[in-house]
């Protein structure tokens, strides 16, 4: 079970969900203690329009890769998610996880896990729109993980590396 606090357009809900399977499945989530049936549809990519059916109501959504907003047929919604289970909470955004700022091709990886890096040090090179973009360390620390290899295409918002 995950327990989340979701604030959407200024209204906050506590949502508890069972673990999700990667296939289309019917689940029951608790919203402020009330059970709600949800048909969660697998779309394969976090960047695609997601859709789901809640209590028989279908929603087609375009979700920001960083989950700061989403678009429904009503318009744009501001989203804030907080994990209420501190022990399982993931690090907050603005941490050492580095996401692809634009979709593109990884041309070079300049560091390996375990290496110590300084703030601003180039970590990898992402080619997009015929330009090479150096992706730099957002802080000084140790490279915890590198998730990509040269020649790999990455989508917008994919975590490419982590600095502790």
């Amino acid at each position, binding site marked *: 079970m*995950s327990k*989340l606090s*979701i*604030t*959407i*357009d200024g*209204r906050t*809900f506590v*949502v508890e*969900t069972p673990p*999700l399977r990667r296939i289309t499945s019917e689940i029951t*989530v608790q*919203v402020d203690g009330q059970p*709600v049936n*949800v048909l*969660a549809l697998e779309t394969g990519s*976090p*960047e*695609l*329009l*997601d859709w*789901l059916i*809640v*209590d028989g*109501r279908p*929603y*087609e*959504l*375009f*979700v*920001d*890769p*960083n*989950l*700061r*907003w*989403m*678009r*429904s*047929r*009503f*318009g*744009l*919604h*501001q*989203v*804030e*998610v*907080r*994990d209420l289970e501190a022990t399982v*909470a*993931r*690090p*907050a*955004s603005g941490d050492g996880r580095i996401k692809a700022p634009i*979709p593109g091709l990884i041309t070079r990886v300049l560091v390996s896990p375990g290496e110590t890096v300084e703030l601003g040090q180039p970590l990898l090179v992402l080619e997009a*729109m015929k330009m090479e973009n150096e992706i730099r360390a957002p802080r000084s620390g140790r490279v915890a993980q590198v998730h990509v290899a040269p020649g790999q295409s990455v989508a917008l918002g994919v975590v490419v590396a982590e600095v502790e």
Partner: protein
Amino acid sequence: MFRTILVANRGEIAVRIIRTCRDMGIQTVALYDDSDLSSLHVRLADECVRLSSGTLYHDAAALVQIARDCGADAIHPGYGFLAEHDEFARACEEAGIVFIGPSSVALGKVRDKIATLEAVRAAGIAVPRHSPRAYHASEWEALQDAAERLGYPLVLKSYSGGRGHGTRLVREPAQLEDMAPHAHSAAQTAFGDDRLYLEEAFLPARYLEVQLVGDRHGNLVHLGERDGTIQHNHRKVVEESPAPYLTDAQRGDLWRQALTIGRLLGCTGVCTIEFVLDAQGRFSFTEIKARIQVEHPVTEMRTGIDLVRTQIQVAAGEPLGFSQNDVTLRGCAMQVRINAEDPWNHYLPSPGCLRRFRFPGGPGLRVDTYAYSGCDVPVHYDPLLAKVVAWDDTRAGALGRLRRAVADFAISGVQTNLTLIQRIINAPDFVSGTYDSDFGRRPLPGAEVPAEQIRDLAIAAALAYIRRGIDSSGVLPDRAGSGWHRDSRKLPQ
């Protein structure tokens, strides 16, 4: 009639022209460069020619040579690029290829915007007070003198071309020195001519235009007016016909004035006469657009007339085939422009590959676009992705269909102005039809979502979080969160 037409344009207007050519049994030749190879216009044409560089869309000599090589007997310029260049029209004429538009002489005349204003005023029609001539960037003192004589607020306008490039609203003398250099350089970049002229500004105002069609046998007919008051980053985003705030008397007057100007300037083919309506309800003529316009479908929806077909027939020397009495203006039509622009990045163009592109349908609806799922949105061109046009018997009906259509539009892969458009068409003064140029200075309302649906969306956000494994803190673009007014005047400060 023509056998082969070279479509000297790209994107949605090239698609639009090719479709009519097919209806008429005319072969088409499309152009592309490497960045817009995937655009629909390339797939729909009978032949296509690769340009070694996108700059060739602006190159009159290169285009005439391509037309010769592929045996085209006419060139349709679309809008933008070379649509209103008298030199291009002349090069076509000299090569024995029909330029689908006015003659080079007529284009040369209306290209001189000050002479056009003078000619229209001499015919007894109100025009804005304006500077006696245009000024190069090197003539700062003369420009400043002209501004002092004209008074403030005033508008700086580019002498060549339009489409908002170089246009600046100057409210007070102190602003002129800052704005003039920017306007000069914007005009130079867009049109290769840095000259600016000055016009008195009307604040607030409404921007109206009348569609005319004329042939070379003396027939000239109006097809009603369109409003284009609502603009974002100096460009129209919403257009509608009829203009909802006009009285019948004003409307009749506007049409009559447009026809007078059209006759005076010898309009043939399709032509748009632009007016500004001041707060006291007085019209002034501002400019003439001697080409097909982006918003032409609004008029097509109301009249049932294919304006591109009319344009081609007239260029081939045929008579219009209908008179003013045959034209019926039915119901109401509205168009919105969906642009690939990033609301989180000052509405700058947002190029990329369209992962999903599903456009709306249903009764009374038309979508003009070059795009489809998998198509690239190129970096170097206009960000216009699609035009959505809704029609119904009443304005409320048309607005309802437009709202549904915009809500149903599913686009991913690039950022768009869809949510901005939704907010504009839900704004109270748009709904009431009472808007003016101050519309863009007021904040827009947010989305109204029923309580149960908000809860459902919270569930969606929870599932999205779990799937992605990221935290978030909410952020909306300034303009979507607290109004979009800072950057959205007709005439930028």
